């Protein structure tokens, strides 16, 4: 009797756990650990060493928080990249106000500055340089990529798609900067952001402000006579702060603790993790890589590749009042070197999902305001497009209304769950969406105090 009851309980445990029956059959030990909420294969994560900041990085800290470099005198890097929100945006506006009087709306949502320390440079296809001394221009890389068959992206074997000859890497939503030093120049001079003025003005502020002595000490007595180099060194110092300081790559999320065998996932979180990795369900891990490397390199939840997902046009962005204005990512208008590569129009960089739960605006145009909205879009974009796109005068759903018609073929319709058609079953039920969100919540840093 007792044995029977135990067997029944065990069967119930198996059947009602989020772990699929197939996993119980093929890997019962792993399945048991998972069902208990634990990582069956804990690893020691290889995270950057926590060493005291260099003099250059300390200079970078001060510059990062200094609003005096902006035209208004009120905006520093930290104004938009909030240190308490994973260096991402506070508030729920899709674009932030900037400019001389902090009244000019921007064009894209603020990306997080966390976890960029391993970001590769922008290339078409992986590892183009391969130790070669010969530079292959981007246009040539794009040329070499045309006609190449693309491996489908699946969470089962995410590494297979790493060799696809597709755009990858770089910083900003369009990958137009390769280094953190270069990236700083974007917001600094953008009239809709910090609006720092001309290079000469910024250089003058640096040369006459509190940083002058330290800049000279670090980079030479003659530095301040060279405005261009003065600004470059200062921008480098800001980038260096982001490389060295642990707050930009803490790896203190619950998921990191779980990877190291130091935390248990709740039932919902585990269910979400399994859906995240299931190619027939969320298939999220196909692009948002979540497995550590063999040597313990922690996952960054992005494969750094670009995607065109056809997000709806966001009427809350003032620039979108002009029906002829389109933000096309790689092919423009803010990136200018790939305008002729129209096969990449409407493609934007896959961001990390770490700390995504701290955001209130998602995608380059901030059109989604919650993770539910994002996941609804992923699941139902092709099954019920009318939920996301407006209708025209004739009542037709204006699918992909943020992309000019001639580029809509660039949208991903082959990688699950973007491979559905009207009438198909959605990849995730509403309950499963909640599970995935619960899992995404485990990616927020601060679960453990520090490493």
């Amino acid at each position, binding site marked *: 009797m007792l044995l029977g009851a135990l067997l029944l309980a065990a069967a119930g445990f198996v059947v009602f756990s989020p772990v699929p029956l197939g996993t119980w059959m093929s890997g019962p030990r792993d399945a048991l650990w998972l069902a208990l909420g634990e990582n069956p294969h804990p690893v020691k994560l290889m995270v*950057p060493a926590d060493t*005291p900041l*260099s*003099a*250059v*990085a300390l200079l970078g800290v001060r510059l990062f928080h200094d609003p005096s470099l902006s035209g208004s005198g009120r905006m520093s890097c930290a104004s938009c990249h909030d240190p308490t929100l994973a260096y991402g945006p506070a508030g729920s506006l899709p674009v932030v106000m900037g400019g001389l009087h902090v009244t000019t709306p921007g064009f894209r949502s603020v990306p997080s500055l966390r976890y*960029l*320390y*391993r*970001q*590769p*440079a922008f290339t078409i296809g992986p*590892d183009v*340089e*391969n*130790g*070669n*001394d*010969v*530079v292959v221009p981007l246009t040539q890389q794009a040329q070499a990529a045309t006609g190449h068959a693309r491996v489908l992206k699946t969470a089962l074997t995410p590494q297979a798609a790493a060799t696809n000859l597709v755009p990858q890497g770089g*910083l900003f939503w369009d990958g137009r900067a*390769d*280094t*953190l*030093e*270069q990236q700083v120049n974007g917001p600094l001079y953008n009239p809709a952001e910090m609006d720092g003025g001309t290079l000469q003005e910024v250089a003058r502020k640096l040369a006459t402000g509190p940083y002058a002595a330290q800049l000279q*000490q*670090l*980079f*030479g007595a*003659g*530095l301040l006579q*060279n405005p*261009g*180099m003065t600004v*470059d*060194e200062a921008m*480098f110092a800001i*980038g*260096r702060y*982001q*490389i*060295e300081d642990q707050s930009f790559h803490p790896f203190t999320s619950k998921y990191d603790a779980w990877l190291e065998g130091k935390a248990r996932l709740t039932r919902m979180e585990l269910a979400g993790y399994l859906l995240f990795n299931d190619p027939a369900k969320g298939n999220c891990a196909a692009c948002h890589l979540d497995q550590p*490397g*063999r*040597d313990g*390199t922690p996952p960054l939840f992005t494969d750094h590749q670009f995607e065109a997902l056809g997000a709806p046009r966001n009427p809350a962005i003032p620039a979108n009042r002009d029906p002829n204005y389109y933000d096309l990512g790689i092919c423009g208008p803010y990136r200018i070197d790939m305008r002729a590569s129209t096969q990449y129009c409407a493609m934007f960089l896959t961001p990390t999902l770490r700390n995504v739960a701290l955001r209130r605006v998602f995608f380059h145009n901030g059109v989604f305001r919650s993770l539910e909205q994002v996941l609804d879009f992923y699941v139902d974009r092709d099954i019920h497009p009318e939920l996301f796109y407006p209708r025209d005068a004739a009542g037709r759903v204006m699918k992909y209304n943020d992309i000019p018609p001639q580029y809509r073929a660039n949208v991903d319709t082959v990688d699950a769950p973007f491979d559905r058609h009207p009438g198909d079953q959605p990849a995730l039920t509403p309950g499963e969406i909640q599970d995935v969100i619960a899992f995404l919540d485990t990616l927020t840093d601060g679960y453990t105090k520090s490493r």
Partner: protein
Amino acid sequence: MRTFFSKLPTFLGTAAIVSCAGSAALAQGPSYWGSSQTATPIKHLVVIYDENVSFDHYFATYPGATNPSGEPSFRAQRGTPEVNNLANAGLLTHNPNFTNPLNGTNAANPFRLDRTQAATADQNHGYTAEQQAYDGGKADLFPLYTGTATAGGVGAFGTKGQVMGYYDGNTVTALWNYAQHFAMSDDAYTDTYGPSTPGALEAVSGQTNGVDLVVTSSSSYYIQDGAGGLNLISDVDPAYDVCSSTTNTVQMLGRNVGDLLNAKGISWGGFMGGFDLGITNSNGTTGCARTTTSAVTGVTENDYIQHHNWFQYFKSTSNPTHARPASVWSVGRTYDPNGQVDPANHEYDVDDFYAAVRAGNFPAVSFLKAPAYQDGHAGYSDPLDEQAWITKVINFLQRQPQWRDTAVIIAWDDSDGWYDHAFAKTTSRSFDYPADQLNGPGVCGKGTQPLGLAGKPVNGRCGPGTRIPFFVISPWARSNYVSHAYISQASITRFIEDNWLHGQRLGGGAFDATTGSIMGMFDFSGRPNPPLFLDEQTGEPIHNQQGWW
């Protein structure tokens, strides 16, 4: 107890020979495996061949370092000789690369790169671009012609005129410390302009003439030499190497120093990082795709870079399948212990070097190339990773019993196009249009070109090229010494020939016949130098570790 006493006579005998060695200029040293008669006491040469550095890029202000707090510091010893660098030439300010208006907005004076800026963009170091930068010897158009090529890692530093940047002893601390205790040259050059593959070939064959196109889809890496053959001027992969490109590969038709060593049965090897395709790295990569991610640059690079592999370009000394040696005892040898031809054919992984030396099988001549992330090449590598590699190798060698008879050369395959102010008068002319541009379109130098393999003057060997650092580290190296005598990459082959091969030369117009000798950097009389152990992270001296058994 018995074994100890039976070994005692050998030990005492060896000690007696070793203590007398200092007084004999031409010693017949103790009989170690792999040794043979040598013209000097040096029985083991280890060549550390690194990537892409000009002399001023590392020594512009030597021996003066800025010493900001928090960085490894450097203070020069008394009596440090003066070197021909930017500081002493008065070129840190009012530099012609700043005043020449042709450099446009990229015009810049030399400037200090901080230790936090170890990761930088790569520069342009093409055969033609470098000639244009040297501008007939004025060396004033670097920003215009050899400016930035690749961005480097996400944390890399970049600026206009970046080619004018230099490091000091707070970054290249180990090399500055080696310079204080051993010998270096401020007059060492690449034999010709151009990037890595020509530089690799010069070190072992003194020659870039005699290209055999095996597979080709581009003509960018060679020119018609004007004597019916082809001359290499840029990078290309070695033919038949299983890791090589499938569209462009070459073999070289001349001889190399390995051929000469084989003819005399002298042990030698080429040891490349990543060469053993059977190893799986900790990150799971294996085969030709073995990679390592640099913690300094953040770039993931293949360990093995085939177009750096000196001996792989020659049929006689190549190991195209990366076959493994029969055992650690056959490393360096043409035949394995059973008298069979060893499949590795003198081409091995760097790991095989450590294993062989530890086992007591220390080849006479060894060429070492780091796994790429440590080779010093801007973009994917950097001076800090390079320092860790160099100090690891030299610390290791100084612990070996054979250190007494060992010399280490550290040399570089090209300058990366980094600024250097010094110019060596063109003795190897070339008149190919448009490749040659040193003195004008199609002109490099005045007079006749050097002879090529066929005994006729050939184009494509414009040189000497760019100035590189060059070290001799050995108990027998002069200490805190700077040589001002002209040497080049081919001087490495010349030393091997002079020391082991009675001054034999390769012929066929190879530069070993005309280049300088490094002998002046040694002093075989007097007391040998004590070893210098340096910390791999900081390059600073650590407690000397005595004893060699």
